[in-house]
């Protein structure tokens, strides 16, 4: 399900709107992922505090959303643009790719929550497709 020119434009426009609150989006999405899907906590057993909004969660949410922001910049060539991140996830982090879909879902829920007027069905469609492509690019180096 490749990204059309319209999809890319929609994603970029939506991202421009949400950028000021990017850290909040990252924190909320990661918090929800850990809380609603507790199996995802297994990747963070080294953190002191896995509760929603805790310091490690907030810090990591910022990192993750930064990665998504990078993906938006590299939207015209995600596989090349996310090569380093893919290698990181493949060889070091070894996150089961099923979890990318879980985090994506939570990002969409948070966007709906924080930007109800901007997160139209068309924006939902474009973001869903985009995050799926990001997940594909991130898992590219896995095997």
């Amino acid at each position, binding site marked *: 399900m490749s990204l059309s020119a319209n999809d890319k434009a929609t994603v970029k426009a939506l991202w421009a709107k949400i950028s000021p609150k990017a850290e909040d989006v990252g924190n909320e999405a990661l918090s929800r992922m850990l809380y609603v899907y507790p199996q995802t906590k297994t990747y963070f057993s080294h953190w002191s505090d896995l509760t929603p909004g805790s310091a490690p969660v907030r810090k990591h949410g910022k990192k993750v959303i930064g990665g998504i922001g990078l993906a938006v910049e590299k939207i015209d060539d995600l596989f090349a643009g996310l090569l380093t991140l893919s290698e990181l996830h493949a060889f070091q982090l070894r996150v089961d790719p099923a979890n990318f879909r879980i985090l994506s879902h939570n990002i969409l829920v948070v966007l709906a929550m924080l930007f109800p007027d901007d997160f139209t*069905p068309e924006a*939902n469609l474009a973001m869903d497709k985009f995050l799926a492509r990001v997940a594909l690019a991130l898992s590219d180096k896995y095997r």
Partner: protein
Amino acid sequence: MVEWTEFERTTIQDIFSKMNYDVVGQQSLARCLIVYPWTQRYFGNFGNLYNAAAIMGNPMVAAHGRVVLHGLDKAVKNMDNIKAAYAELSVLHSEKLHVDPDNFRLLGDCLTVVVAAQLGAAFTPEVQAAFQKFLAVVISSLQRQYH
């Protein structure tokens, strides 16, 4: 049997007692047909579903959205035995409507997004967890009679 905490029960009853079924039903089904266009396969007789605007304005989509959402009432009222309450609906979706059960998850995700937009900050992680657990039980019950 599914174990529900007091918080989960209250949360579900609260969300549905305050819900505008007309709005949420229409928005959820329309969003599903737009975001996951292959779901349109089940609605060949709904007329114009050619683009997002057409889907959002389609009166049959709105009407059916309401029907689907009221279908959830059965689960809200029978939280302690959703499986039994949904046996007939499960047979219907399998034998008569021939709906691929994966679609239940897609519609469930769209419903979650719409409810999140409605509740805003009140859609806390705890509320989200309760809501998604409820939908998961409904979806599992709807799949139960498939063979």
